[in-house]
């Protein structure tokens, strides 16, 4: 069984690639665009929903969006 490690990359995304990744994740998880989520998060719209796993997953992807 070959070790698949060689196939794996820790690719550093460009800003644009990162925004695409974040946008796709936001649409899939919460049905909003990446820009919408970012604006809403910074405006405190999700205050009180910090326990929601989908929300927190997106929060952990925020460096891709900024």
């Amino acid at each position, binding site marked *: 069984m070959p070790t698949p490690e060689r*196939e794996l990359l820790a690719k550093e995304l460009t800003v644009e690639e990162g925004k695409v990744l974040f946008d796709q994740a936001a649409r899939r998880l919460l049905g909003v665009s990446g820009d919408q989520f970012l604006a809403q998060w910074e405006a405190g719209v999700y205050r009180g929903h910090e326990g929601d796993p989908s929300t927190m997953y997106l*929060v952990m992807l925020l460096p891709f969006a900024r």
Partner: protein
Amino acid sequence: MPHPNPADAVDAFLHDLRRCLACVTRDGIVRNQDSAKPGQDHSVTLRSSSAPVKVEARRGGATKLALRVALLYRVAPHLTDWAVYIVSYHYGLLDVDEKEILVYHWHPQVQGFVTPHLHVGPGAKAERTELRKAHLPTGRVSLKDFVSLLIREFGVQTLREDWKDVLGPTALGEGP
């Protein structure tokens, strides 16, 4: 582990993450731009992060599971060298319909739930509503602990011959 510069510290950190995840998935990992810049949080996740990564479970026939993994880390001086510190994590196990079964969380930068905890999601089919909303306290959970759990308890197929060496004692259910 300290390294002479931020880039080396991040490379070593990501190398360990890749090896660990490669025990159960062929998906690679991606990081944000300038991911070795000190003084700010950086994100690393599976390449297919907009959709959960499918993994095969060998137990229970054709059962399929999915993973959603992301970490925030920071690179900072350590004495005269540099080291990477994990500052948040999300280790999610989902069913094939993308319903969360388990999610291990630690996100101390967000008010409300600053200590490590576990979510039991709808994919677990737990009937008590308290469980579905609960933040069940845990200690800090490493990615190795999580991947070991997938293999040991959920029968996820291993993709590396040396997975026990990569995951260490937790792979066999032994304490550190």
